[in-house]
């Protein structure tokens, strides 16, 4: 366009110096824009050039005072510079937004995340609830009996022989003041959960399927593997002519839930007073896959729980006819399972209330 003006040979125009000023403004403006590195500063640059009192605006304003024949050309030239600068600012603004942070200063992204103030459930409660969910999805009820029970429910109903050593105070925590009593009148902290099964069956009858997790108590010398108070998880199905082979379902439900994989199990002979036949249930060692390793003592199998068909005397105690009803018990030590799950090496930590331990399971 400047060429065009020159062609017109308008000396006056040159004399006015406006064109030169525009030329300078454009050059300086473009430099400034490209130098600006913050979106905020760019706004200042825009105001200085194109704002109400901006330099380009001033030129535009002065066009009116120019000679009338020059006004059109000058106006066009000034507007052209305004558009160019405006576009450049816009473009620079885009660039800056794309490449600039929202805040100033440096940041250390390796700082730890802030802590959340959540508490947590005891690892045994967590395991217990996991199992409850699994069993409830199979239609089992969750039942519990009080922690104080009687010899009748702890032993007599469960076919423990009158002289069975578990009845001794060496094994069971009897309540003071009941030492001379027997049966229903002799109270103790429950030594196992199985007594609860008879309580449930007496009330609900058969068929039945239920779990009854809880804490049990044994008079023992404690060490890293032995506790006086510990948790068990027991499940029982009672049905007509329930074959022990079907009991494997209970076993697999527990193990598949805990280990999250299809666990191979085997049942072998085991003896417990309240079952006949009784089983020790082993699972294929997950560490070595059955090849034999330290964990499974080189046999490829790990003993995980006892189980079996309720003894006829137990069913009778529950008011059920053993000729009609049969079923399957399994009982698993929750402490041991949790120890296996997390690699805990001292069972006494579960009752320690030590938050250094418990905080690890949040």
């Amino acid at each position, binding site marked *: 366009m400047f060429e065009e003006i020159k062609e017109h040979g308008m000396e006056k125009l040159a004399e006015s110096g406006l064109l030169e000023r525009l030329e300078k403004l454009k050059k300086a403006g473009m430099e400034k824009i490209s130098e600006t590195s913050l979106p905020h500063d760019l706004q200042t640059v825009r105001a200085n050039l194109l704002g109400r009192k901006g330099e380009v605006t001033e030129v535009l304003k002065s066009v009116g005072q120019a000679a009338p024949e020059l006004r059109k050309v000058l106006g066009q030239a000034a507007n052209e510079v305004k558009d160019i600068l405006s576009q450049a600012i816009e473009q620079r603004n885009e660039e800056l937004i794309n490449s600039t942070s929202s805040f100033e200063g440096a940041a250390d992204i390796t700082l730890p995340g802030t802590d959340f103030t*959540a*508490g*947590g*459930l*005891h690892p045994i*409660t967590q395991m217990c*609830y996991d199992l409850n969910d699994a069993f409830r999805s199979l*239609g089992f*009820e*969750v039942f*519990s*009996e*009080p*922690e*104080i029970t009687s010899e009748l429910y702890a032993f007599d109903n469960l076919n423990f022989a009158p*002289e069975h*050593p578990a009845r001794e*105070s*060496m094994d069971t*925590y*009897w*309540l*003071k*003041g*009941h030492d001379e009593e027997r*049966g*229903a*009148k002799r109270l103790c*902290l429950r030594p196992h959960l199985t007594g609860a099964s*008879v309580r449930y069956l*007496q009330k609900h009858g058969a068929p039945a399927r239920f779990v009854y997790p809880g804490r049990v*108590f044994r*008079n023992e010398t404690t060490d890293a593997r032995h506790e006086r*108070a510990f948790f068990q998880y027991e499940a029982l199905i009672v049905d007509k*002519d*329930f*074959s*022990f*082979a*079907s009991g494997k*379902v209970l076993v697999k439900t527990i193990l598949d839930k805990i280990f999250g994989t299809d666990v191979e199990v*085997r*049942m072998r*002979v085991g*003896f417990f007073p309240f079952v*006949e*036949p009784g089983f020790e249930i082993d699972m294929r060692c997950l560490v070595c896959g059955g090849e034999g390793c330290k964990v499974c003592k080189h046999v490829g199998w790990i*003993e995980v729980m006892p189980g079996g*068909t309720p003894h*006829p005397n137990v069913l009778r105690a529950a008011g059920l006819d*053993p000729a009609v009803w049969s079923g399957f018990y399994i009982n698993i030590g929750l402490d041991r399972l949790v120890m296996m799950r997390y690699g805990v090496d001292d069972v006494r930590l*579960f*009752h320690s*209330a*030590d*938050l*250094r331990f*418990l*905080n690890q399971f*949040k």
Partner: protein
Amino acid sequence: MKLSLNWIKKYVDLPEDLTMEKLAYDLTMCTVEVEEVTDLSESLGGLAVGKIITVEPHPDADKLRICTVDVGDMVPSTIVCGGINLAPGQLTIVGKPGAMVRWHGAGDPVEIKPAKLRGVMSYGMICSSGEIGLEELFPVSREAEIMDITEFAAEPGSSAADALGLNDIILEIDNKSLTNRPDLWGHYGMARELAAIYGCRLMPLEKASIPEYSGDLSVVIEAPDRCPRYAAVTFKNIKNIPSPFELKSMIWRVGMRPINLPVDITNYVMLATGQPTHGFDKNHIKGSIHIRTAREDEKLELLDGEILDLTVSDLVIADEKSPVALAGIMGGKLDSILDDTEEIILEVANFTAMGVRRTAQRFDIRTEASSRFEKSIEPQRVDGALAVAVNMFKEYFPESEITGFADEYPLPLKNSEVEVPLSFLSRRLGKDLTAEEVIMILDNLGFKTAVKEGILHVTAPSWRSTGDISLPDDILEEVARLMGYENFDLIPPAVILEKPINQRTVEMERSIREYLAFRCGMQEIFTYPWTEDEYIEASCLDTKEMLSLSTPPSPEESRLRSSLIPGMMKGVFTNLRYFDSFRIFELTQVFADKNYHSINDPAEKLPEMARHLAGAFVGTDPRLLFRQAKGVLEHMHRAVHMEALGFEQMTKPQWADDKLWLNVMYDEKPIGSIGLISLKSARRAGIKRSMTVLFEIDVEILHPLASRQNRYTRLPEYPCVDFDLSVVFDEKVTWAEIYETASKVELVREVRFIDEYRGQQAGEGKKSVSFRIRICSDEGTLNSEKIEMITRQMIKKMSKKLGGDVRGA
């Protein structure tokens, strides 16, 4: 229990292709758990017989010798050795270079290498018995004695295990799995079981001829209910000499220490038949043998030197004067086999399980004998044991002579009989069985079976008749285990669709726990039900209604908790060592010696047991901690489907501070409390430098609602306006009053506490309370005049009703 495979094989022809792995596996699956299988020759691996040719002194060491030893190679080896009994011609055990040897018969094998000893090269090592785990078989009389096996006449270079006849496999059985199988507590019993598993031939146990006369031996059983049978034989011309190696080695390999020939014979008999026996020195027994209960004040010194104060419930073997043995458990020190014993009385008797167990427990003595009697042995086993014993005495003491015999058997044991319908077995096993199959299995196990109209009449052998077999289910187990549990298919139970399980109480307990853990930032803990006296005292609990344990874990922990507060205090104390601010809770049962009631059997009266919930908030600001704890209870009903909890001051819990406590109300009744631990209680519980607010409520009383009860409130149509006020009040003005007054002002929708301030700026006896007020109108947007008007109204009411002084007003 350890078993020698060679010993078992004396009684049974096992299948020729049977591997050890298979045997251990089958035994584990069908009968008892095999915990470990050890190859004895492996523990002596790498060791060979060496014949010493020359013994020369070492030029640079007084205690070392330079020997040339024939170890079966072309050239004899030079071995430097410090043994003091080295002699040319002697046979010994040598570890050759390159051999992998397990020192002391255990651990990982170590390679033997040639080494220079004081400048002389030594190619191998001559062993002492201790170095290779054989010290019990080859006891050393002096230090630095090497093993002398000259009497074995073995070829130099042959393996040590071969030379010593120790090529055997030892099975270790888990004793727990043997509890109900007294018949398996011996090699013969296990051989019988294996014969049944593999259907192979079992040799009959040997017989012996015992003269019928009793000589001067007389036995009187005074307590036949505890001693159903007592047999005794006297032998003369017996000597207390060491046993021949073969006998020693048999009992050693299954874990018993060889002692002397007569004692080793008694132990051998027990290991073979499972029947314990005992030998007395006949010269020490005055008059007849009495099996009787002990008398008050009688004492007995046992073989291990312990002196027992006997009680009238202990069964003893006694002569005319005093007890000489604790029946079925251990012999007396003075009258058992002694160094100079020449004539012995061998006891082969049957004692009932319960008596032996009680006495063993009372004195805390467990012996090989007592652990066998405790399992209940059949009296018939005496016959076999007697025969083995008599034959052994005759064999090992050819000049011995039986001088007396007695066999009192007042209480014979009848064989168990069971009737089992064949259909029962088929139904319960989920498999069709024929009578022939079942009879064959039972026959292998020694059961006699007759079939009549589909019913099996089964008679158990004597060795399975002491309680183990009595029901059809027992027969079912026998059949199933020998068929192999693995051979029954998994039959999933048929699923019946029922109504969904809805257990509100169970769910409520879980939602309380999850609310506290996941919403309130509290960590669940478990504590013991027995409570330490120290914390009972700190909790100021009344011990009158607390239950106690008969044999508590410790004298200070005899009481069962009636409250969770002591456990909480202990939990706080424990964690203050590592943390200065935390929140914990426990939900479990507490007990009280009252309100006895029946839940099943009317004869059974159980004490009051209720589930309690307790929590602790630990930190520095008591008022804030109190508010935090209160907030947790206040909002509980929002997560747990229950009516909201309320708060009132009725009775202060004894452990609480005078200034900060409340009772927790539910259904207009107090169900617990919340409070700051008083200085006194904190001191007693050892809680220092920290503030603790505790709460405890009775969860048993809470009634789970069928569903959530809160309702939705419509969102306001016009925007609401919030403004904050800080008002200085007298200390005695409560938030409840401020709240009530503020709420009554026109258009006020919400009044929320922000904080309170005490200090110089507020003035003595004063506090500044800040709160936020929200005003809303249903008629239109609030203009500034309206807002100002309400603010003025609010300030006026605070001042007029409560004496509040609004800052900047």
